[in-house]
């Protein structure tokens, strides 16, 4: 009974945070302009985000460190952002780039991600920029062939390794998740011993209070 109450309290806090966040983001997020003449439209508009964990005590929550960079609706608009951003490998510390479909926030709590999950690929240092570019181009060019299942992609720069992830809507849709895995293998040209892991966001949510990292507690799927 006691535990139940605690849980409800936490749930309530989450809700409040989410609402305040939503209103905050409505102000900050500018929609992508329609593709201009000479531009190549893409199937879905996307938004680019950046986050960085501040060293030391974790007093700020994830959504406070998350910055909206901009939205784009064409290939040219994408490049005009991309070429004016640091490469992932040039970022310092604990940083991430997120590219998600416009309207989907790069967090588990978003309605599009609630029942979803992500493929995680751990990379040795030095290849993240190249792999990230290939991943993003495959996503924008609709290479995954899974309908509207893809939500977004993340590159996470960490101290010992870098991590790519691709998020999709439905974690228990195995046709989709295995098609995404096969496409990832094809487009990323990964070193032979690379481990790919799939993780449901609900697992991330369960463990978030314990270890603060969504890259732990994963199921290994191959090699």
């Amino acid at each position, binding site marked *: 009974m006691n535990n139940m109450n605690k849980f409800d309290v936490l749930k309530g806090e989450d809700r409040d945070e989410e609402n305040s966040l939503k209103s905050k983001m409505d102000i900050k997020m500018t929609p992508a302009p329609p593709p201009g003449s*000479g531009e190549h439209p893409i199937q879905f508009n996307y938004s680019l985000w950046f986050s960085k964990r501040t060293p030391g005590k974790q007093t700020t929550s994830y959504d406070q460190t998350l910055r909206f960079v901009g939205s784009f609706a064409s290939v040219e608009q994408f490049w005009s952002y991309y070429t004016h951003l640091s490469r992932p490998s040039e970022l310092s510390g604990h940083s991430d780039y997120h590219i998600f479909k416009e309207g989907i926030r790069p967090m588990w709590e978003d309605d599009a991600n609630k029942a979803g999950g992500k493929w995680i690929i751990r990379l040795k240092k030095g290849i993240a920029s190249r792999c990230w570019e290939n991943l993003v181009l495959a996503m924008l060019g609709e290479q995954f062939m899974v309908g509207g299942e893809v939500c977004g992609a993340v590159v996470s720069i960490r101290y010992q390794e870098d991590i790519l992830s691709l998020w999709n809507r439905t974690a228990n849709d195995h046709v989709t998740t295995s098609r995404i895995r096969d496409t990832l293998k094809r487009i990323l040209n990964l070193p032979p011993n690379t481990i790919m892991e799939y993780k449901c966001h609900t697992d991330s949510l369960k463990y978030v209070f314990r270890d603060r990292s969504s890259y732990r507690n994963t199921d290994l799927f191959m090699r």
Partner: protein
Amino acid sequence: MSAKESVSLGREIPATRRVILHDAAHMPNDYSSTPGGTIFSTTPGGTRIVYDRAFLLQCRNSPLTKSPPPNMAKIPGVTTPAEKGSPKVNGNPECKTVAEKPENPGDEPQFEMDI
């Protein structure tokens, strides 16, 4: 289940999309792709804009990508200034030359010792 039901119905070819090229760099370099991406007419519910990696990389050379979008957020160390090669304010080299030490000859006698 009758044989009639298993026959798929014919569909019209999707409307043509006209793509105007302003730059030779936008031409795909292989014959299997069309400028402006491949149109998959077999997707249920319509068409899907598909681009391969090589085509997307070519678009990077477009003059439209040369300046950052006007409303791009500015994040120090993440979003880079438009001009490359401009010197960064990253510390003052003059500060490092320790040539001019403050002249304080008056202090020296303090450390003299009588042996």
